[in-house]
C-alpha cells in the first residue's frame, strides 16, 4: 500500500484498462458469433438430413385458401406473399383501433374512478377490477360466443333503417362513389386547410391578446359545412348498395363480422382497464396545490383538468402507457382462437400447415411483432420526450 508508484514497468499491454476492456469485448463478440454460427449450421445440417426444404420461395406460390377479412384484394389464387400482406394489415388495423379505443376507455374510466360521485366511482372500480383479473383469452371467447348466442339468425335479423344485425355481423349500406365524387374530396381538403388556419389564428390571437376562441369546435363545423357544400354542388354523387337478406346470408352492403367485433371489444376493454389505473395514478401524482391554484385563478373544472392537471399527469402516464400499447399489439395474436384472420392465424396456422416451413413462417411472425413493437416504442419515446418537463 505504501509504495504505489507509477512505474513504467507495470504499464505492460495487458495491465492497461482500455486494452483489457477491448480484449474482453473482442472475446465476447467472437463467442457470440461462434455460437450463432454453430446453431445456424446445426439447424441447416439437421434440416438437410431430414430432407426438409427451406427458403422463402413458397411466398410466390399460390396460397389456395380463403381469408374471411381482407382489406386489399385477395382470392384463393393469390400468393402466400399476398396472404401475408392481408394478415399483416389485419393485425395492424386491430392493433391501431384497439389502441385508440383502449385509450379512450382508459381515460374515461380512470377519471370516473376518481369521481366524487359514489356510484360512478364504484362502477368504474368494479369494471377495472373485473376485467383486469380475467384472462384475455377467456374474455375473447366470452364476447364471441355471448354475442353469437344473443343475436338472431340472418332470416330474423334485427333491422334499423337500412342496417341489419344478426349472428353473421353488422350489415350497413355500402357507399359507392359516382362520377364527380372527386369534387367532394377536393372540398374536404379545402375545408381541412381552412380548419387548420382557424386553429393557428386562434392560438396566435390568444398568445397576443389572451382572448379565448372555441377553435376546435369551429374547425369541426367548417369541415362539415364546407364538405357538404361541395357535396351538394356536385349533385350528391353517392349511391348506396343496401344489404339484402338472401337464402343463407345477407348479401350486398358492408359487413362487420362478429370475429372482428369480439377481438376489438375484448382487446380494448381489457387494456382499457389497465390504462384506467395508469391514468388514475398519473392524476393523483399531480400535487393538489396545482388544482387549488388553477381554481383561485378562476379556471373552470374542465379547463383545470385539461390545461393544468392532465399535461402534468401525462409525464407519469406515458412510460407505463407504452407498455400497455405493446401488450395490446402482441395480444392481438389471440384473435386466432376465434377466427380473426390475423398474422398468427394465417401465417403460423394455415401457411405453416400447408407448406411445412416452420422456421421461416415463425421467423416472419417474430420479425413483424418485433418491428411493430419497436415502432410503437420509438413513437412513444419521441412523444414522451416532447411532453416531458423542459427545465429552464
Amino acid at each position, binding site marked *: 500500500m505504501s509504495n504505489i508508484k507509477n512505474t513504467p514497468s507495470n504499464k505492460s499491454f495487458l495491465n492497461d484498462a482500455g486494452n483489457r476492456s477491448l480484449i474482453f469485448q473482442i*472475446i465476447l463478440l467472437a463467442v457470440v458469433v461462434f*455460437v450463432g454460427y454453430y446453431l445456424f449450421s446445426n439447424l441447416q445440417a439437421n434440416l438437410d438430413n431430414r430432407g426438409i426444404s427451406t427458403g422463402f420461395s413458397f411466398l410466390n406460390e399460390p396460397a389456395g*385458401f380463403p381469408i374471411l377479412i381482407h382489406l386489399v384484394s385477395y382470392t384463393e389464387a393469390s400468393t402466400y406473399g399476398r396472404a401475408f400482406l392481408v394478415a399483416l394489415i389485419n393485425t395492424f388495423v386491430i392493433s391501431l383501433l384497439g389502441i385508440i379505443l383502449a385509450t379512450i376507455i382508459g381515460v374515461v374510466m380512470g377519471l370516473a374512478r376518481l369521481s366524487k360521485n359514489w356510484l360512478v366511482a364504484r362502477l368504474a372500480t368494479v369494471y377495472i377490477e373485473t376485467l383486469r383479473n380475467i384472462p384475455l383469452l377467456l374474455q375473447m371467447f366470452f364476447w364471441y360466443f355471448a354475442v353469437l348466442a344473443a343475436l338472431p339468425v340472418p332470416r330474423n335479423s334485427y333491422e334499423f333503417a337500412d342496417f341489419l344485425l344478426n*349472428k353473421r355481423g353488422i350489415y350497413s349500406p355500402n357507399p359507392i362513389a359516382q362520377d364527380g365524387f372527386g369534387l367532394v374530396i377536393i372540398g374536404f381538403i379545402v375545408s381541412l386547410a381552412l380548419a387548420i388556419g382557424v386553429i393557428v389564428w386562434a392560438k396566435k390571437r390568444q398568445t397576443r391578446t389572451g382572448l379565448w376562441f372555441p377553435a376546435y369546435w369551429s374547425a369541426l363545423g367548417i369541415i362539415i359545412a364546407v364538405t357538404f357544400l361541395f357535396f351538394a354542388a356536385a349533385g350528391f354523387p353517392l349511391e348506396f348498395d343496401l344489404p339484402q337478406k338472401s337464402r343463407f346470408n345477407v348479401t350486398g352492403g358492408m359487413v362487420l363480422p362478429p370475429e372482428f367485433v369480439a377481438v376489438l371489444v375484448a382487446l380494448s376493454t381489457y387494456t382499457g382497464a389497465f390504462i384506467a389505473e395508469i391514468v388514475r395514478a398519473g392524476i393523483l401524482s399531480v400535487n393538489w396545490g396545482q388544482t387549488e391554484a388553477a381554481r383561485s385563478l378562476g379556471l373552470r373544472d374542465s379547463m383545470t383538468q385539461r390545461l393544468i392537471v392532465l399535461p402534468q399527469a401525462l409525464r407519469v402516464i406515458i412510460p407505463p402507457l407504452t407498455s400497455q400499447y405493446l401488450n395490446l399489439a402482441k395480444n392481438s395474436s389471440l384473435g*386466432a382462437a376465434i*377466427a380473426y384472420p390475423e398474422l398468427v392465424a394465417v401465417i403460423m*396456422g394455415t401457411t405453416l400447415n400447408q407448406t*411445412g416451413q416452420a422456421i421461416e413462417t415463425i421467423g416472419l411472425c417474430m420479425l413483424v411483432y418485433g418491428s411493430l413493437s419497436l415502432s410503437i416504442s420509438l413513437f412513444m419515446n419521441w412523444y414522451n420526450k416532447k411532453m416531458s418537463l423542459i427545465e429552464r
Partner: protein
Amino acid sequence: MKSNVCKLLSTAAVAAAISTGAAAGTLDDVKAKGFVQCGVSQGVPGFSNADDKGNWTGIDVDVCRAVAAAIFGDAQKVKFTPLSAKERFTALQSGEIDILSRNTTWTYTRDVSLGLDFTATNFYDGQGFMVRKDLGVESALDLDGATVCTEQGTTTELNMADFFRKHNMSYVPVVVQKADEAVSAYDSGRCDVYTTDKSGLAAHRTKLKNPSNNIILPETISKEPLGPVVRHGDNQWKDLVTWVMYVQVNAEEMGITSKNVAKVKADAKDPGIRRLLGAEGNMGDSLGLNADWAYNVIAEVGNYGEEFERNLGKDTALNLPRAINNLWNNGGIMYAPPVR
C-alpha cells in the same frame, strides 16, 4: 485467461460434434426407453380420445398399442402426446414422438417435403359437409353463398376452397384455430355449414346440442387416406409400423381374432399361419423382433375388423359403416400384401 478461452472453445467444439449426429435407430431407442411415444389428437372420439381417467382409446391409439405389443409383447407400454393439427409434424420431425398416429391425411407435399414417411392407411376417409336440417339443403351443390366453419391446420381449408371454386359458388370462410371452437361456432349459428373429414363430422355430431337436428350431406369432396407417420430415413422403423398394420388386416382376412388366436396357433396346420404366429421359424428376426410378435399384436389388440368395430362400428356413438374400409374381398379397399 488464455487457457480459459481455449477451454471454452474446445467445449463448444465437443458439443457441436455430439449434437450433429442424428439418431437413426428409432427401434433401438424405443427398446432402450421401454415404451413407444405416440403422438395423438387432442380428442376425436373413435380415433384418439382420452376418458376421464386418462385412458386413451380409438383406432389411431390402437396402432401405437399394436406396435408396443409387437416390440414388448405388452400393448400398455405406450405414452401419449396430445398434439394440435399444426404442432404434429414438428413434434415428429424433432424426435419428440416415435409415431404420429393422429388422423393425418397422406398427401404428396407432406410425404416428400416435410421429412416424413407415411406407412399404411388405417382409415380411408373423405371430406364432407354437415348442415342443420331446417336449412332444407340436400346437396353440397346447394351451398352457394353459405358461411362455412372449419378448423385450422388441416387439409380441409384447401379442399373447401377448391370445391367452391370448381363449382363457381361463393362462400364466407370462418377458420377457427381448434376443432372444438369451430364446432361451437357452427352450433351457435355462426355458420350454415361445418366441414371436415366425414368420420370427424360423425364424431363431432355426437357433441352437438341436438345431434339429430344435423345431417351430413352425401357428397364426398376429397380423398383423405388417414394413417400413421414416421420420420423419413429410418427404414427399419417404417417397415415395422407398416407390417404391424398389414398383419392386422391379414389376420382379419384369415379369420384370426384376439379370441381365437391362441387356439389357432396351437392347432394350425397351414404353414403360412404357423409362420405368421411364430409357431414355425422366425419371421420377426429381420424386423428386429421376437418370433411371436404378430401373435402378440393379434392377442393384445386384435385384427383390423375388431379394431374398427370396437372404436367406430355399430355399437359406438359414431356408428360408422365399414363401407370403403371393408376388406378387398368384402366390397372395400382394405388390402394388405401377404406375409410370407
